[in-house]
């Protein structure tokens, strides 16, 4: 390669194309893997092309630009976060199916190369944690939390755009790595010295480092934004102890993000220094020590677990209360338990490496600390059961996910306590038992929570319900698929099968692996059901319309406004007098009243910052991965210029006049009054336009 090309393209060469090795090595294994990798790359390229063509064909570029990409509206940013999460979810599930298929036939060999398998488990883990779970919960909080506290937007709308841009850039980088391969094979934890330059000189680890760094930066900023919003922008009268539980968990999550994310940014940053500038932070020589990385990683990693699980706890709290037609049991206890979990989550990181040779004192102390977390968590589970107790339970789709969660999550909790017992952990650490455990927490916990939230708040965001028949099918496929796919892994782990092994040599493993493979197919079915559900719902959007905004007889403020809510959320900021503010209004007959007067509303103006920072950070990361230094420098300069330029922008706000607000609101109220309120038995019928009949205590409804 000549000097000029290497100056322009860095170390990027033809061999980065996924089919390149297939052309030189004609063994059937190489060809199969080449075909799979090329197919995946083709999907990325075709998917991107299809999106571009579709938008052009619909003539929606201007709409996309002004209404979405540059919009500072927390609701739209939240939806965009969720779209990223769903795209990445689809990819990571397909990867999981490939891994399960490989292991189902993996006695002695299988059809995937070890390198390919390594990339699959690394991208699967990285995507699921950083580009599925994080954007999904960030999106849900982004959408719901300001509505729940009666705010018009987050405290820092432009920062919110930047967060979205950074996450999108990270996700795009992981997608690009399919086309210009390879990705890292070091696992989502990326432990050095395996990920050091000496051992893994390729571009893969660098892809991983920069994708994760972008994601952690995004989440830190998001955490700041959420925390400040909850502290500063609550509606008058909404004291901390009147906040809905979902907002409480959002607050705890935000605090965990602020303190939990930077350790990983630092860890990947130091690893990058090792790899790019010959530092020796985590190398084996010249004073480096990989244990520092492991501690930093899990100082992030354990709070991260609770970043992922607390928002679902909040979601389930709302879902249980709403669909039991009843107050949440033990609100104060649940708040205390949430806070306990958030604080304790910083004290247990060492249980991720009991086997690293610490003294028994340390291991025992961290083991016991870990079990302490089980107490508030167990209390929460009982609180949810007591919320249903003496209620009127409607088994809606969000509720099916919630029930699946409560029954499966306790099993995961039990295996968590097993893993927290150091003497037993010495047996099951690094095994499929561990893999089964954290999937048992994250699928019934996080993912069911997110899907429950999607089914719950989708009508709020779009103005029409998600179709229930396919919703139930998806939910049951998820529950059954999860059980089939992961319960066998517990047994395999007890039989000593290590995680991340492409093949194995024990014939006893085979039947369990085949069951797990069938489970993966069921999960693929679940994904399909979700897509069909979305399609059917959009097709039937007019009949399932719930414009009045309260399809589930909701309890909190977000249900008091129109569906979809206006840009400014509330025509007049509501005043809060109790917990379950909207329910209290409905019971007192004070809901949907015409306010005394309307005022002008100041909303943040559109800004290109999110798009600019997203693009420059993607360019910089891409340049760093392939050593295209001109691109890195250019991206850095543009970023700096954009930030400075932003300081000169004077029109950061725009005013929505009181008249406009009044017209919109009065028109909505008028339509609402003409809508017949329905009781809960017709909740899933086309009669439901989002106006609920007032509940009567003791009545059999």
């Amino acid at each position, binding site marked *: 390669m000549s000097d000029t090309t290497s100056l322009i393209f860095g170390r990027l060469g033809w061999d980065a194309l996924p089919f390149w090795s297939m052309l030189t090595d004609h063994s059937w294994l190489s060809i199969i893997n080449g075909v799979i990798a090329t197919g995946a790359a083709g999907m990325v390229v075709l998917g991107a092309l299809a999106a571009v063509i579709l938008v052009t064909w619909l003539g929606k570029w201007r709409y996309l630009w002004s209404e979405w990409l540059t919009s500072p509206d927390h609701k739209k940013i939240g939806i965009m976060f969720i779209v990223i999460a769903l795209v990445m979810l689809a990819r990571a599930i397909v990867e999981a199916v490939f891994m399960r298929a490989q292991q189902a036939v993996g006695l002695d060999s299988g059809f995937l190369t070890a390198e390919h398998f390594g990339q699959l488990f690394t991208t699967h883990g990285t995507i699921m944690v950083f580009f599925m779970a994080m954007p999904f919960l960030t999106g849900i909080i982004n959408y719901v939390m300001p509505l729940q506290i009666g705010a018009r937007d987050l405290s820092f709308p432009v920062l919110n755009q930047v967060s979205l841009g950074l996450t999108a850039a990270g996700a795009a980088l992981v997608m690009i790595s399919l086309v210009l391969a390879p990705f890292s094979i070091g696992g989502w934890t990326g432990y050095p010295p395996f990920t050091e330059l000496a*051992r893994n000189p390729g571009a893969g680890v660098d892809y991983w480092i920069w994708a994760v760094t972008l994601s952690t930066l995004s989440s830190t900023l998001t955490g700041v934004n959420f925390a400040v919003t909850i502290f500063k922008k609550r509606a008058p009268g909404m004291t901390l102890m009147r906040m809905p539980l979902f907002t409480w968990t959002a607050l705890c999550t935000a605090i965990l993000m602020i303190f939990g994310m930077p350790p990983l940014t630092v860890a990947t940053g130091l690893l990058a220094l090792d790899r790019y500038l010959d530092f020796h932070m985590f190398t084996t020589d010249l004073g480096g020590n990989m244990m520092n990385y492991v501690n930093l990683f899990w100082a992030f990693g354990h709070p991260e677990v609770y970043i992922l699980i607390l928002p679902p706890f909040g979601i389930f709290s709302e879902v249980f209360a709403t669909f039991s037609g009843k107050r949440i049991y033990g609100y104060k206890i649940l708040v205390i338990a949430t806070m306990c979990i958030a604080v304790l989550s910083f004290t247990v990181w060492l249980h991720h490496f009991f086997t690293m040779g610490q003294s028994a004192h340390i291991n025992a102390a961290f083991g016991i600390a870990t079990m302490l977390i089980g107490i508030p968590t167990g209390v929460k589970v009982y609180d949810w059961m007591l919320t249903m107790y003496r209620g009127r339970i409607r088994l809606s789709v969000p509720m099916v996910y919630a*029930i699946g969660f409560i029954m499966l999550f306790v099993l995961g909790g039990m295996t968590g306590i097993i893993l927290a*017992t150091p003497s037993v952990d010495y047996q099951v650490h690094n095994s499929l038992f561990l893999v089964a455990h954290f999937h048992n927490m994250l699928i019934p916990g996080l993912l069911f929570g997110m899907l429950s939230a999607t089914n719950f708040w989708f009508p709020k965001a779009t103005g029409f319900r998600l179709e229930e028949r396919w919703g139930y099918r998806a939910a049951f496929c998820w529950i059954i698929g999860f059980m089939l796919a992961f319960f066998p892994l517990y047994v395999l782990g*007890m039989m000593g099968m290590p995680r991340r*092994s492409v093949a194995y040599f024990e014939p006893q493993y085979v039947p369990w692996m085949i069951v797990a493979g069938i489970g993966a197919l069921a999960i693929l079915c679940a994904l399909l059901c979700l897509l069909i559900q979305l399609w059917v719902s959009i097709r039937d959007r007019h009949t399932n319309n719930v414009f009045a905004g309260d399809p589930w007889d909701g309890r909190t403020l977000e249900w008091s406004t129109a569906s979809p809510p206006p840009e400014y959320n509330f025509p007049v900021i509501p005043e809060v007098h109790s917990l379950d503010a909207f329910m209290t209004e409905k019971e007192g007959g004070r809901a949907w009243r015409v306010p005394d007067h309307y005022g002008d509303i100041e909303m943040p103006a559109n800004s290109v910052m999110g798009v600019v920072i997203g693009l420059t950070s993607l360019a910089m990361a891409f340049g760093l991965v392939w050593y295209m230094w001109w691109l890195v420098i250019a991206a850095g300069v543009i970023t700096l210029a954009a930030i400075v330029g932003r300081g000169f922008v004077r029109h950061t706000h725009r005013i929505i006049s009181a008249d406009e607000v009044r017209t919109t609101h009065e028109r909505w109220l008028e339509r609402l009054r003409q809508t017949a309120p329905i009781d809960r038995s017709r909740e899933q019928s086309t009669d439901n336009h989002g106006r609920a009949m007032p509940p009567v205590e003791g009545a059999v409804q």
Partner: protein
Amino acid sequence: MSVSGRIEHFLRQGSRYVLLIPMLLLSGCGSDMPGFMNPQGPIAQAQRHHFWVVIALVMVVVIPVIIQTPLILWRYRYRGHAVYRPKWDMSRWLDIIMWAVPLLIVAILGVYIWRQTHELDPYRSIASDKPPLEIQVVGYDWKWLFIYPDQGIATMGQLVIPADRPIALELTSATVLQSFFIPALGSQIDVMNRMVTKLHLEADHPGRFEGKNMQYNGEGFHHQRFITRAVEDNAFDAFVARTRRQGRPLDQDTYAIIADKGDNRETARALGLDTSDTDAVIRFSQVPEGLFHTIMGGSPIDWSALNVAPPQLGTTRTSVVQTSESDQSSSSESTSAAPESSEPESAESSSPSHERKEAQP
């Protein structure tokens, strides 16, 4: 009434199926199940015990959830006639129970864990009337080197240990992080470059057990396996004698081959050995003085300390005897010692076949 009766019947049936699951699991723990559910040593035995103790204690919290959730769902279903109290949100007694029971369980577990963690600390030597056998383990990319410092020998591919005698392992890695694990015997421990970890294990009786690396370290990760062969004392002596006699010295050239990437079989091939049996033992008759600590310290190995002229054999690769039909091959071993085997070797390979079955797929 008939509906609820049917439901009750269904629930009763359901609970029977719920009980079936652990029974299925237990039946999976039959005699051919590898791992610690079928323990072959005191450590794994204790770990299996802890496993079930923890499950039993946690079940106190878990079982009510699993049983009561469906009951609540049925009783308070939307069209049911049970009491409806939409504003009921607090009960002091329930709260006290809710906090007290898990607290109590964690308190019991805490005491239990504190004790057991100390008792089963992998650094703690196992009480026995026999002195422990010291073995040094070095992890390479996709294979392990077992050094017997007191015997002055080393092996790869098989870790041969005397049964019913504690084994004291010191471990380090010549490459990246790995985790050394013999599931049937007990704990795993991380193996790190420039660091030493310790592990104590013991096998109750003769047998063959799978050993593996649990921490992913690259393409050959799943090949980083070895057979642990626990043998009677006299068979162990025979093994040592035979290794001294038939092995090749671990000299500079040999070490360079070991340090290369590759699994046991690839190393054996590079050493010019027969590779028909993947589980075969590679024997080294001599090891440089302090090799383990030199690797651990990262300093260059002093090859002059190695006497490179053992009396029996030269140092050429072809002179290394690697007879797969005598003691390495499991099939011949289980029937009888091969005819050309001398007396000590047949003693070494005379472990009864029924014990071997347990770790032998």
